[in-house]
């Protein structure tokens, strides 16, 4: 079978703990979709839950708050990966539970 465990760990470690232009606290908050202030709260919530609704205005508001495009790039990546990680972990736990009870 394919195995993405190490690659997933490496991706998460890189975006959260490696060098970046956004602070580690901002990247972690975006990854967790937790504890962000507006306007980032709205942008990251959309990235996580309904990315097709992200708008130019969401980015404009984030830029107006003083964030650079490179910081926004990192924050959006962290928001996207974080939600995908939560989905993946929930599904693996559900599979484990299904097999245990079989």
């Amino acid at each position, binding site marked *: *079978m*394919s*195995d*993405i465990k190490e*690659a*997933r760990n*490496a*991706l998460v470690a*890189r*975006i959260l703990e*490696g060098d*970046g232009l956004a602070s580690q606290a901002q990247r972690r908050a975006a990854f967790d979709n937790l504890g962000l202030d507006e306007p980032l709260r709205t942008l990251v919530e*959309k*990235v*996580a*839950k309904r*990315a*097709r609704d*992200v708008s*130019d205005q969401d*980015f404009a508001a984030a830029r107006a708050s003083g964030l650079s*495009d*490179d910081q*926004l*790039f*990192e924050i*959006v*990546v962290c*928001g*996207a*990966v974080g*939600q*995908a*990680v*939560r*989905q*993946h972990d*929930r*599904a*693996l736990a*559900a*599979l484990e*539970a*299904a*097999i245990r*009870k*079989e």
Partner: protein
Amino acid sequence: MRLAILDQGHSFGTKVMFTFIRLFSGHRVVDAVKLVMYRPDFYGGPMKPLTHEAMRGPSAWSAGDRELMAAFISQQNATEFCVKAHSAVAARAYGDRDRVSSVLADLDAAPIGEPLRATLRMLGKLTREHAVDANDMRGVLAAGASRAQIEDALAVCFAFNTTDRLADAFAFHVPGPKAFEAGAKFLLARGYR
């Protein structure tokens, strides 16, 4: 693309490579490539091997099956770029465009095996609702998918639930069908590394 840096902020060497790709392929570099080539140390570098392993690593699912999963997941997210890109790869891998379009039109009626159908149904729920439970997984196992096949499908789902979000958040430009055909040929031959 919403962030100008993703369009034009690449290193000189990468810009030269994009020029060569345009000259030799006759197509502009698509936004999915621009994304993974922008500051690749941050995202593209670690993401490309993950996607390659999920899509082309050892699995009881064929490359066509996994490309179909990618297209189906992207349809649940309403991510037009990825639906079109991975429908084209799946159709080429299967040598059967109708199988792909029938799954995207009506999963219940599509002419595919039950393990794949049940797996796609579970991936759809996971993508739309962000969670599945043990009963959902028991349904997939009962349909004949193995634990390893389910884990492999979840790897595809992880890759595309990341990529789709970025495609939509950054507003990937959706090119015409010829660009997706050229992309499909490349992705089948070379994968995602």
